[in-house]
């Protein structure tokens, strides 16, 4: 394969850490071996993507989804990855659900607070509260996008 631009490489530090955690303590990894594994990982991503994309196209979809990736793993004879990947997917979905619920709850609490305060305060102060609420809502939206 021809040379590739830097962007298609994965960060050395992370790759090295994953290798070290996988191997027994005290094993030395040559620089060449490390660099080769990093390249292999990039090739793996390409191969997996291409495979997953075939499944998406079969399903007449333009967006790759989780099941396409799982099907790709089986196709590539990496069935051993399917179970841990499914577990990771569950964990990820729970995490996303948790984040969403947390931000929705925050919003609810603020709405409640503003309602009870409005009854006591004058109009000027009401405007201030609404401004603050808008700002906070904007902040929350930013978090959800991340």
């Amino acid at each position, binding site marked *: *394969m021809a040379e590739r631009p830097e*962007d*298609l490489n*994965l*960060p050395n530090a*992370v*790759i090295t850490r*994953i*290798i070290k*955690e*996988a*191997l027994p303590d*005290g*094993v*030395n*990894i*040559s620089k*060449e*071996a490390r660099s*080769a*594994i990093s*390249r*292999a*990982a*990039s*090739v*793996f*991503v*390409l*191969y*997996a*993507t*291409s495979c*997953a*994309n075939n499944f998406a*196209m079969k399903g007449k979809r*333009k*967006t*790759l*989804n*989780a099941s*396409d*990736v*799982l099907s790709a*793993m089986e196709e*590539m*004879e*990496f069935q*051993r*990855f399917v179970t*841990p*990947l499914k*577990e*990771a*997917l*569950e*964990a*990820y*979905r729970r*995490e996303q659900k948790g984040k969403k619920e947390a931000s929705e709850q925050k919003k609810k609490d603020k709405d409640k607070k503003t309602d009870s305060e409005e009854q006591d305060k004058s109009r000027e102060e009401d405007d201030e509260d609404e401004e603050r609420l808008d700002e906070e809502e904007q902040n929350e939206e930013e978090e959800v996008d991340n």
Partner: protein
Amino acid sequence: MADAAVGKDKCGEQRLVSLPLSRIRVIMKSSPEVSSINQEALVLTAKATELFVQYLATCSYRHGSGKAKKALTYSDLASTAEDSETLQFLTDILPKKILASKYLKMLKEKREEEEEENDGEESDIGEVLA
């Protein structure tokens, strides 16, 4: 709160994947015909890549000869790729290395074979011209 599916990182935060999603996405997008990638697919691909790195490292270590010296070398990786059906897709980028002297010898032997064939033809021409 340690969970088998969730990785850990130095800050003590629990992280699902260590590889940067932005970089994984760049590589995925460089593949032709891929229009868009759903966030879950991105996370799973990153996770699969981590599993792959672990697999390649441990397989190569066990399979290779570096094990005796408690080291993982390039040749361990190259021979594992060659010998494993699952890892065949890596043989192009992880070619086995040979000594330059051995390669030159192989080239020389090949040329000698070709010359022998040519000699046959030349002598025919020689006879015609003579």
